């Protein structure tokens, strides 16, 4: 069976997580990534969910649709509440934060609020939820997203969740003293936002993907690392675990 987009994102996200750390993860690919890491190389990883849920277990086949429901809290270790969960991140207890798809620009800024003006927008999007808090407060943030041209725009018109703002040291200058987007995993490859420019840069391609594919699916010029590598495809073991967790393929697709 072929690898789905969410399977690919979950596997790449899981591999980026270290043992003895903490991760702020929402539902979908981020949750699958964290759960996979715990079942492979990071058994001492703690997951925190936006609903104020710390150290959840998950019942295979009963993965949560939202971060504030009983499937998310199943056999959790602590339920600190929403505000206090985010405050743990502000204090510095969260090593990694995952955030998912949105409109993304070359400096890793995300827009999930509005297109075509804020007050009377052409398209009103759902809003930040906790994405702004996760990207502002975690030690580092990884973006997991499908790679589509419409998502990747030169400059988002509304910064719901701040990456590196205008680039350079603008993030720090804004008062965001910590964190930033360390990696972005898409369905085409892996990217970073290296100083000094803090511009989105391709550092690894998934097997069978070319730099032209990436450029063709991105709304601006993509920087490419001189040491461009290729990712290792998901292993059978990784896919088996994901499919064990989500046998009905509700989330892996």
């Amino acid at each position, binding site marked *: 069976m072929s690898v789905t987009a969410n399977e690919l994102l979950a596997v790449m996200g899981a591999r980026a997580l270290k043992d003895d750390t903490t991760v702020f993860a929402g539902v979908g690919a981020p949750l699958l990534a964290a759960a996979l890491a715990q079942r492979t190389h990071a058994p001492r990883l703690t997951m925190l969910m936006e609903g104020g849920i710390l150290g959840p277990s998950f019942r295979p086949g009963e993965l949560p649709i939202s971060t504030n429901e009983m499937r998310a809290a199943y056999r959790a270790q602590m339920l600190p509440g929403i505000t206090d969960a985010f405050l743990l991140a502000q204090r510095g207890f969260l090593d990694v934060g995952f955030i998912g798809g949105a409109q993304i620009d070359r400096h890793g800024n995300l827009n999930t609020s509005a297109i075509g003006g804020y007050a009377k927008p052409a398209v009103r999007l*759902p*809003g*930040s939820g906790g994405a702004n808090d996760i990207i*502002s407060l975690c030690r580092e943030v990884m973006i997991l997203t499908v790679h589509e041209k419409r998502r990747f725009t030169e400059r988002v018109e509304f910064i719901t969740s701040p990456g590196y703002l205008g680039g350079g040291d603008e993030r720090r200058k804004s*008062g965001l003293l910590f964190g930033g987007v360390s990696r972005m995993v898409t369905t085409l490859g892996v990217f970073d936002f290296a100083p000094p420019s803090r511009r989105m840069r391709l550092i690894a391609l998934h097997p069978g993907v070319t730099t032209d594919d990436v450029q063709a699916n991105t709304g601006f010029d993509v920087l490419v690392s001189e040491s461009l590598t290729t990712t290792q495809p998901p292993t059978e073991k990784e896919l088996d675990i994901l499919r064990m967790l989500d046998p009905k393929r509700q989330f892996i697709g």
Partner: protein
Amino acid sequence: MTIAPKEYDFHAARLRLEGKAKSAGEKVTSLESAVARVRDGDHIAIGGCLYSRTPLALIWALLRRRPKHLTLSRNLMSYEGEWAMVAGACDKVVTSWMGIGLPWGLSRIQREYVESGRVEFEEWSHLGLGLRFRAAAMGVPFLPSLTMLGSSLMDVGGSRTIECPYTGATLHAVPALFPDVALIHVHRADRFGNGQIDGYPHMDADIARAATTVIMTAEDIVPDEEIRLHPDRTVIPGFAVDALVPVPYGSYPHECYGLYDAEPDHFTVYVDGIKRDGAKGVADYLERYVYGPRSYADYLALFPDSARHDAAARARMLTT
């Protein structure tokens, strides 16, 4: 800037509380008399989160009074926000996110009402809104935080920054939000309003302290002694509660931790109505589920008993 001084004026908010009786006495009343405390134009903070512990019985009773010009605030706004928009009850929504959940896509009602300018949508980050309620709960006009700095969200509500007098650091001074009324649903309370919540607490405790008036429903009214044997479970102090109504399944078909699971299939039927008829789908739903039934019991009777029992069984399975 869209926040009104009334929202963060801690001095006036405190004087409103000072002027109120803070009674340890009986608070039990009917849904109808409880929501009669809401005035047109009030700012209503809604407890729970998304489709968890939503005070649906109170929202159900409130909308039946055809209120006008309300502002509704909630951390994650679910379809109760769509109901209020289509019912013409609210001019403004204050939240960090609106929808039901991934499987149901964008809220077409949010899009229609906000894109047309009929309803103002004031967006905060999830923590940002949480800190607005917490600042009010603490009786201060703001709380310092790093969240939202650098983002366009700083402009939506007119957020200001503040310089730390010790470190010189620049922080977001998150403005307090003192609502007029808090609507809250809890697992159990004594008849004096001392309320206990199981599972995730969401933001209810802060909202109850932040608001001038607290209207609460409880799945179960228990004897005074039961609360006094487990006082470390109490999160809402009775003297802060103005009205209390015992309402089993008071959040249904949303979930109540440990007692009943949510009903995604019902959400799908609701959303299918919107996909088919747009706002009229919600209007028809309101006729059938909110305005039509003679009582909340009749509202619940529109759901098959078997569904409620299954929801309870799933909740037990997921929490024991």
